[in-house]
C-alpha cells in the first residue's frame, strides 16, 4: 500500500503539521520505506488471534464519579501562552 504525495499532505493536515512543498517527495519516500518494512507482518498468520491491547490482565479500576481535583484554576492557567479573564485565549473561531 504505497502512499502518494496527496496522501502525505492529507495525513500532515490530519496531524496538524505542515510539510513544505519541497519536502513532500522526500517525506513520501521515507513513508513508503517504513510502510514497506512494516508490511512484513503480513507473513504472519494471525487467524484467531485476539489483538493485544494491554499486557497486564487487570480490569480498569473504577472510582466514585466525583469532582476530585477542582479549584486549581490558577495552577492550570500558569503555563498558558495567552489567557484572558481566567480563560485560555485563542484566535477568533466564530465569525
Amino acid at each position, binding site marked *: *500500500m504505497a*502512499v502518494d504525495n496527496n*496522501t*502525505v499532505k492529507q*495525513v*500532515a*493536515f*490530519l*496531524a*496538524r*503539521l*505542515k510539510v513544505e512543498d519541497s519536502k513532500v517527495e522526500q*517525506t513520501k519516500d*521515507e*513513508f513508503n*520505506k*517504513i*510502510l514497506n*518494512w*512494516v*508490511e*512484513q*507482518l*503480513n*507473513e*504472519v498468520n*494471525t487467524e484467531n*488471534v*485476539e*489483538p*493485544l*491491547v*494491554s*499486557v*497486564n490482565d*487487570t480490569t*480498569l*479500576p473504577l*472510582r466514585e464519579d466525583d469532582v476530585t481535583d477542582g479549584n*486549581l484554576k490558577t*495552577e*492550570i492557567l*500558569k*503555563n*498558558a*501562552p*495567552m489567557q484572558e479573564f481566567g480563560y*485560555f485565549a*485563542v*484566535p477568533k*473561531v466564530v465569525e
Partner: protein
Amino acid sequence: MTDLTELTIAEALKSLKNKEFSATELTNAYIQKMENTREYNAYVLETPEVALEQARLSDEHYKNGTNRALEGIPLGIKDLFCTKGIRSTACSHILDGFVPQYESTVTQHLLNAGASFLGKLNMDEFAMGGSNETSYYGPVVNPWSSSEPLVAGGSSGGSAAAVAAHLCAGATGTDTGGSIRQPAAFCGITGIKPTYGRCSRWGIMAFASSLDQAGPMAKDVRDCAIMLRAMAGYDAKDSTSVDMKVPDFEQVLGQDIKGLKIGIPSEYRPDGLNKEISGLWDKSAQMLQSRGAEIVHINLPHTPYALPVYYIIAPAEASSNLARYDGIRYGLRVKGEKLDDLYINTRTEGFGTEVKRRIMIGTYVLSAGYFDAYYVKAQKVRRLIKQDFEKAFEKCDVILTPTSPVSAFKIGDESMQENPINMYLNDVFTVSVNLAGLPALSLPVGLDSKGLPLGMQLIGKAFDEETIFKTAYALEKDAAFKRK
C-alpha cells in the same frame, strides 16, 4: 579524601549514616563536578540550589535519626518527568518554558525517600530516538569517547552519560523500546526497565502509553535495586499501575543461582551478529553456568516481527498522545490567523523531524481504511510475541541476551541519518520486552576492541525482577567490569 562522586549509592548511604561526610558535602561534590563537566551536554537544566536545600533537610534527618531509604543521595532526573516548579520539556521546543505545577509520582516517591535532584537530564525529544541526537538541546556525548565524539545512546542518553561520568549518583530513565537499557549498555552502566505497571506513569510525559515504563539507571546492580524499590509502587492516578507489594530487591543480591535455568534464544543470534558481542554473550553464559546455573536453549520465533510491530504501535500511540501539544494550554505558541493555523504553525515549528515523522506514521496507521491492516494486525502479532515469552518461561527462569547489536557509534553517523530504519534496527534486542510488558536489565560485561562498553540483558517473568537482580548480581561479580 577520595572523590565522593565515585561512590555507589550503597557506599554513600553507609558513609552518610556513619557521619563520615554530610549530605551537603556529597551534594556539593556532585554540583562541582556537574558544573565542571558540561562537555557531555548531559544536563539541560542544573538545579544546584534545589539540591542543596534538599541536602540540608537530609542532614537534619541524619541528625535526628529519621533518615530514609535514599536520604541525601543526589540524583539526576530525565527531562520527561514532570517536576514541580522545575522546567520540564521532554527536550522538545514545543514545551519551551513549561513549569509543571505538580510532581510525577515516581519523582515524588524519590523525594519521599530523601533523595535530592541535581537537575534535568538530556534525552531524545519525547523519548523518540536511540542516540540522543533528536534532542532540541543537542546530542549527549558519551563519556567513553576518545578521538571522536560518540553517542551516549537513547533515549535516556543524558541519564546514562551523567551516571557514567559521576555527574549524579543515579538517574531516572524511561524505556519504551530500549531507552534505559541501550544507553546503559553504551555508557557502561546498569539500568532496569521494570515490569509494565510496576512504576506509575503519572506525571511522565506520555510517548506510547502501553509500552512506557520508568526505571533506575545507576553505577551497579545493587544501586538499581535500591532505587527501584523507592520508585515503584501502586498509584491510583495511573489506571495501569498494578496493586502489588514492592519487594526489597536488595535482599536477593548474593543469593545462590545454582539450578537456575538460563534461557538462550537462538533468534537473538542472527547471521552476521558482531563476533565480539556473541563472544561476550557465550562467556557470560559460561560464568553463570560455572555458578551452577543451567543453560537452556529456547525459541522466540516471532522475534523478527517485533520491530515492525513496535514501529506501528509506538507511533500510533504517540500520534494520539502528542495531539495535546496545540499551543493553547502550555509551551510554545506560534501565531496563526485562524485556530487551525495556530495549531499547524505551533506543531510544525515545535516538533523536531523524528517526532513529526512518527506522528505522521501513527496518524496514517490509525486513519480510516488502514486501521485494521496496520494497527490491529500489529496488536495481533504483539500477542504472539508475548505468547513466545510465556512458552519460553515454561522452560527457563530468566533469559540472557546481548542488549544491543552494536557499541556506541559516532555522532552524526551517515548510515543512521540516511535511513531512519537503520537507527530503528538498533532496538532489535530490546523492543520485544516492552511489547510483552516484561522486566529486563542491562549490565556492562566487557569492552570491545575499540575500548567501548558492551552490555548484556537479562529478561525476567512479569513481576519477577528479583530473579533478574539475583542473576545480574552474580554476573556482575564474575564479569568484573571496570567502571569509568
